[in-house]
């Protein structure tokens, strides 16, 4: 057996870590991220001469479970064609046995990093509504995200908002039955496009991120989860966006209503939540914050402050003119 020096050892480790893209249209540029089951690489699509992001499993997956999960994630992205959801271009298995899919390369930064440069409350709320648009669309298409958190939101250079990482998403409505992406098992991922066999998530499996996960999700009640689990996470995201911004009570109330422990006490749909935020921005009453007469008056005054100032200024000028003519 030949001696392997430290230098050769490092070289072998580095060479082996890189996915084998021979026979594909892609060339690796650099590794740009990593997750629980794989890494994301920036790659060059040599046919279309554009950059794409490749999500690739770390290891060949003999049992097929991880490959099936990756394929299901790609399939979910493929059915969610929306400006706020990263489009998938391709999926398959590399020569080294690792499953992958190709998606649009999103230039921008994660919300948890972007937040420092978004100082205006209105800018933060615009980002939040962008997230709501994408998640609301997914719900209409029967998909729960289940892991909404700042690290999974990208904000592009032109202010575009993208919801990323649908790896633990749950399909609520299938033609036959519901299934969980996160626990699919079946045939290995193949470029032929054969859909893997799907099974339900074992009851009790907890997927998500503490702090952003609804109580029912944290308890592992995966069978009972519905859109309101994502609404809880959106409320937590809103709280994150409002942190250190001196959030008005009406906005704080919207976040709290979204994060109610009882799903029935939350907004029933994402558009309802988003509309409440819009109503706040328009100076209208919000469903989450019942107002007394003084609060209504204060809000009304705030909403029409320009008109009120103009009218008062006009009346003052008229009064001065009257006084002047009577002298």
């Amino acid at each position, binding site marked *: *057996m030949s001696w*392997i020096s*430290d230098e050769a*050892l490092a070289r*072998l480790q580095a060479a082996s870590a890189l996915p084998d893209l021979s026979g594909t249209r892609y060339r690796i540029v650099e590794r740009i991220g990593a997750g*629980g089951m794989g890494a994301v690489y920036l790659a060059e699509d040599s046919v279309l001469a554009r950059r794409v992001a490749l999500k690739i499993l*770390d290891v060949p997956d003999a049992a097929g479970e991880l490959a099936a999960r990756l394929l299901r994630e790609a399939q979910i992205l493929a059915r969610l064609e929306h400006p706020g959801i990263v489009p998938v271009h391709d999926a398959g298995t590399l020569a080294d046995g690792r499953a992958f899919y190709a998606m649009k390369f999103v230039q921008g930064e994660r919300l948890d990093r972007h937040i420092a440069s978004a100082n205006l409350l209105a800018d933060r709320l615009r980002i939040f509504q962008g997230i709501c648009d994408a998640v609301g669309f997914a719900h209409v298409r029967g998909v729960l995200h289940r892991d909404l958190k700042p690290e999974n939101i990208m904000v592009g250079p032109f202010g575009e908002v993208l919801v990323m990482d649908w790896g633990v998403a749950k399909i609520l409505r299938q033609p036959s039955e519901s299934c969980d992406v996160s626990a699919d098992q079946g045939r290995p991922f193949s470029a032929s496009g054969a859909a893997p066999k799907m099974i339900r998530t074992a009851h009790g499996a907890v997927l998500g991120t503490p702090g952003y996960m609804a109580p029912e999700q944290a308890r592992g009640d995966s069978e009972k989860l519905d859109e309101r689990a994502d609404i809880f996470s959106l409320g937590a995201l809103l709280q994150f966006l409002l942190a250190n911004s001196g959030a008005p009570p009406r906005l704080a109330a919207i976040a709290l209503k979204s994060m109610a422990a009882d799903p029935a006490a939350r907004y029933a749909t994402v558009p309802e939540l988003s509309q409440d935020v819009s109503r706040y921005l328009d100076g209208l009453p919000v469903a989450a914050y019942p107002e007394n007469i003084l609060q209504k008056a204060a809000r009304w005054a705030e909403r029409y402050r320009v008109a009120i100032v103009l009218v008062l200024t006009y009346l003052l000028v008229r009064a001065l003119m009257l006084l002047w003519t009577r002298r």
Partner: protein
Amino acid sequence: MAETTSIGGPGGKFPATCWSAVLAARSDDAVERTRALGAITESYWKPIYKYFRIRWAKPNEDAKDLTQEFFARLIEKDFLADFDPAKAKLRTFLRVCADRFASNDAKATRRLKRGGGVAHVSLDFESAEAELGRAKISSAPAHSPANMDDFFEKEFIRSLFGLAVRDLREFCESCGRQVHFRLFERYDLEDGGPQRASYSDMAQEFGIASTDVTNYLAFARREFRRIALERLREMTASDAEFRREAKALFGVAPE
């Protein structure tokens, strides 16, 4: 009665996918258990020998005896009965056993004439000693527990990769792709410092096109990775552990 145990066991060079020596070592099937222990011995004897030499500062001959006895007992006795894959990695377990074994060395010597009463395991200590000498030139590890962890892990990876390189050579020879292996050996295994040959140098040296160098190397690396992963899978007890180890082995750690 002493007997010789062949390294690697009767399982052949390319074990069945998902076969775990860690689990099989506790099997009731004697053949399966022997094969598993052979695979464990093959992967771990060099790291253990080097560990005795460095961590316990054992002289060459003492380290040889200890290593022999350690693996002979591993094979003969129910050494792995206490090992719980759910609680620890095999590597950690073996290192702890090696520590215990070395610390009891004096007592063991008094109690039992070394080499008597246990099977004899054929191990090529000369190669291990030569490797140790070369490794010590580049980095003499300090004896802190953390450093010894790193040392033992690195020597395990070196052992695993060494076996994978051997398997790759045999595989390439069996399918008439000797040039692929020689390119891999020349480019990935040989040290050349900053003066390492370029792909075009290699193409000239081997009398092939530069694109062939790219393709041949890609093939050899792909097969090397496959073989190394198969060997690594043998040394793990679950898919989750395998994935963790593969990440560590190939340097792809989550951010």
